[in-house]
């Protein structure tokens, strides 16, 4: 499979702190890359660099062969990269349908068609009955689901999921996992950052382990689980 995203020698320094140190990896097309590591290992910084919230100190990030570094978040989204957050960034005092409409601001299709699509997506995760409720009225897990749907409204090829299962009820986790699998079958690719290692092992064929901004291991779940550096990073010496 050809690489959809190529990260080469990525380095991010904040003052004197090196948050990411010469990281390189690729995300093949139609894949789910797991990105794990303890708190402060640099996972979110990598995500921020990919979607343009941070400009890396050095290194390159190429998406479908096009350099992304230096571009603004909306340009990167337009290029085909979506992103969800650990704490969902919904528009709290807007209805679910309105939340899903905002990304397609420049869409030439009639508004009725956009609303129909938004409602169809909400129905797919059993939130249709809440379509006219404000986003702030939803549970944290439901908000994460709506954030994923909002990303899907602009149909990106690669989706960055930052801690999608943190603090989410197991029944909603199942809905979330089903969504990821369904989208994966449709050809979408993901980078999945999570502390829920069980879910990462289930969803990702390829996993990257970070510690203090450096890659300490990568491979399949079976390679990672028994890797001594990974065990040391997670459990301590």
């Amino acid at each position, binding site marked *: 499979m050809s690489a959809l995203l190529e990260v080469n020698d990525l380095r991010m320094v904040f003052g004197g702190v090196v948050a990411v140190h010469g990281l390189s990896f690729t995300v093949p097309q139609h894949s789910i890359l797991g990105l794990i590591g303890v708190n402060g290992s640099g996972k979110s910084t990598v995500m921020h660099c990919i979607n343009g919230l941070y400009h890396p100190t050095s290194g390159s990030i190429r998406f479908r062969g096009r350099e992304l570094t230096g571009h603004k*978040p*909306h340009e990167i989204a337009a290029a085909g990269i979506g992103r969800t957050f650990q704490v969902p*960034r919904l528009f*709290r005092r*807007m209805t679910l349908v*309105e939340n899903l*409409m905002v990304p*397609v601001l420049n869409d030439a299709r009639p508004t009725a068609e956009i609303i129909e699509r938004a409602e169809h997506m909400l129905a797919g995760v059993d939130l249709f009955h809440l379509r006219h409720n404000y986003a702030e009225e939803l549970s944290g897990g439901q908000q994460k689901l709506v954030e994923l749907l*909002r990303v899907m409204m602009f149909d990106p090829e690669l989706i960055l999921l930052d801690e999608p299962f943190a603090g989410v009820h197991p029944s909603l986790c199942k809905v979330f996992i089903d969504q990821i699998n369904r989208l994966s079958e449709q050809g979408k690719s993901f980078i999945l950052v999570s502390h829920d290692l069980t879910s990462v092992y289930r969803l990702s064929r390829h996993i990257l382990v970070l510690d203090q901004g450096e890659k300490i291991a990568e491979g399949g779940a079976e390679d990672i689980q028994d890797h001594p550096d990974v065990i040391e990073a997670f459990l301590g010496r």
Partner: protein
Amino acid sequence: MTTLLLFQTLVSGIILGALYGLIGCSLTIIYGTMRVVNFAHGDFVVAGCYAPLVLLGLLGLNPLLSIPLVFIGFFGLGMALYYLIMPRLRRADDPELASFLSFYGVSLMAGAAMLYFFDADTRSLNYSFHPSVLHIAGLLIPTARVVALAAGLVLIALLTWFLYRTLPGKALRATIMNPGAIGIIGVDINRLSGLAFGMAIGLAAVTGVLIALVFPAFGPFSGMDFTLIGFVVIVLGGLGHPVGAILGGVFYGLAEQLSILFLPQSLSPVVGFALLIGTVMLRPAGLFGRVGLR
């Protein structure tokens, strides 16, 4: 004091309050989307007061018919100003303070420009409606005020329709609620902010047209008064809350007019600022805002 006088005052308060609300609404759109403290906002309102004066003098244009022209002209001016000033402000360490200082400079320049073109004397719009006064339920209300209120309500309705029914309006509200989330879903916040800035300056100028109909006089340096009223109104209504600003304006207008009726003249200007301080102390999110709105 008669009940009639009280009702007369309440009607005046609502009419002026609706206009103050429009000033606050346009100011809060700018603050909400960009976190820009537009200290020159009142100067655009005053420039809007002069616009029908010029259009009436040059083209004989009815002030109400001048509204679309004024909006388009000031929308363009706002967009130009946005692209001239904002790219640098966005890079500032403290954009709110930088915008406050920059737009204070814009305010001084706008005041000086109006002084140059229109002299220091106060002016009034020499246009009257027939009949000049309407008798409504026993109250005597100047026709110009009724017309200004009607036009203000139409503007509020249009603004509400834009913000709640159109995609750019929804995106604007989304930006006010969570500016950090708008770029990551593919919306160009710079373009949207430029649109918001142009629209808000256009709305401020159109409010100026209505104020010229209602207020007996205005001068090149009246801008600061309107800016201060705008800030009081948006704090009352809840920062970054366009509909709250309208309601805050009505609340302020009523308080101002009632204070003129009940308090010594020298004390009435204090009422607005007492309301501001009281709101900040007792209800920082504003009367109609909510804590954690964003």
